[in-house]
């Protein structure tokens, strides 16, 4: 080794920006810990309370099975109706939002904004808004699921449209076909498998959302759950949670088996 060979330092000092981010993060984290008033004493009491809850919840009380089943059915109704309309509305919106199918950049920006707003506002907030608009009950839940589905499905549909290979749509364009015909004849068939997968994910997501929407009065099994919790009938609550668990897992299995067949 000659004298000129540089030595390589084992460590390098992080950049000033990295320092600022690291210190800022640490400060925010510690302030958060302090604000949450975390103490060993509270955690201990929490554990005791949790044990008492579990004690009262076991065994789950299925005596109100009819009411639970009815509410679960309503939840599935909300999810399926909402997600169906959501996916249907997503298709035209995605066509307007994708760069290769949108008529012009103004329409595209507006469509993207609509999709972004539907996605950024959480489903529970949509439900609160629609409860104000149409009153308590499943209709508010359906509307909330529609908005939530649009934010998710329209985004993935439009991304899929943009990935589609250009050749087939160019071939149809070269025959003198109109834009909509080209989209329906080449781009939609090419995106079909991916759109089916996205739609099935939307259904899974919608069932999970529909369960919680009841907590703000938008219909479904969440209404039963929040009532049971407020009346301290933890054994009822446990039964409801178990039913939800079975329904969600059951649908996830069903949807993944459909997905395997389509793709």
């Amino acid at each position, binding site marked *: 080794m000659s004298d000129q060979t540089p030595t390589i330092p084992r460590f390098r000092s992080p950049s000033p920006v990295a320092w600022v981010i690291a210190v800022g993060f640490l400060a925010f984290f510690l302030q958060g810990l302090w604000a949450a008033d975390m103490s060993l004493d509270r955690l201990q009491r929490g554990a005791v309370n949790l044990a008492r809850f579990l004690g009262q919840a076991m065994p789950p009380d299925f005596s109100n099975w009819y009411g639970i089943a009815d509410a679960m059915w309503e939840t599935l109704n909300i999810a399926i109706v909402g997600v169906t309309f959501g996916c249907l509305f997503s298709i035209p919106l995605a066509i307007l939002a994708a760069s290769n199918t949108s008529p012009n950049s103004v329409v595209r920006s507006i469509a993207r904004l609509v999709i972004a707003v539907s996605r950024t506002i959480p489903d529970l907030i949509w439900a609160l808004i629609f409860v104000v608009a149409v009153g308590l009950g499943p209709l508010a839940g359906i509307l909330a699921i529609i908005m939530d589905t649009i934010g998710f499905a329209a985004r993935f549909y439009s991304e899929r449209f943009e990935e589609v290979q250009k050749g*087939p749509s160019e071939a149809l364009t070269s*025959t*003198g*076909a109109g834009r909509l015909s080209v989209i*329906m004849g080449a781009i939609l068939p090419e995106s079909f498998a991916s759109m089916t997968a996205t739609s099935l994910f939307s259904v899974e997501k919608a069932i999970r959302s529909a369960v919680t929407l009841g907590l703000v009065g938008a219909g479904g099994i969440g209404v039963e759950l929040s009532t049971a919790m407020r009346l301290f009938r933890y054994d009822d609550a446990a039964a409801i949670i178990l039913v939800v668990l079975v329904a969600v897992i059951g649908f996830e299995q069903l949807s993944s088996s459909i997905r395997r067949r389509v793709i």
Partner: protein
Amino acid sequence: MTPPDPVLDVRDLHVSYGDLRILRGVTFAVGRGEGVVLLGANGSGKSTLMRAINGLAPAASGQVSLDGVPIIGARRAPLRKARRRMGYVFQQFNLVPQLSAFQNVLFGVMGQRPLGILNCLNPVARGEDRERALECLDRVGLADRAQHRPTELSGGQQQRVAIARMLMQRPSMVVADEPIASLDPKAGREVLDLLWRIVDDEGLSMLCTLHQLDLAREYGDRVIGLKDGTVQIDDTVERIDPAGLDGLYDGATRPEDATESKIAAV
């Protein structure tokens, strides 16, 4: 060479991508029933020329007209009308992979039916269109594969389905952009035989890019050689000078690429 009754007339066509000037004043015409082979090195602008002729690539200036109807600068409706009369065969076949061969052929009339696709999907298409689609598949020898998807067919078969789609369109002019470049030599020759036979039988005009000089001489009536974005050779096959053809592939494709080929030469 200007044919007396041109179907396709290209005048002083310029096409640029950004600062890159691909076509620099291309002028030629294709007569009725004439078969023209377009030759040129990679990057000489062959594909761009084909795409500009169909209005798929935007032209900077110049004019292309099909049967006297202008294509460059045309509004959407007249452009679509002109495109209906031009059958386009692509190097990559460009069939819709999720749909059957039959449905892909039916799409050939998409531009000619009111409501477009709503009148050429298999369940709702007119009886005569469905019959004709099957006839077209029969012409290319694939009537028994009508229900197959493109992915279940070989490359040569896929190109034959694409030719059937072109035939379905009842064009007056066929534009084929390296129709056999993705096929092996045997399948390529079969497809080229079929394509040229159909063009002859129907009395269509043809503009076809190829990479093989021997095939160009064998199939074409006339050869156009493209270099540096301009027409360098335009003559009948009998009178073409073999040395001139080789010259198309010598040196830099575009003047500004000269340094690149110098490096390559070193």
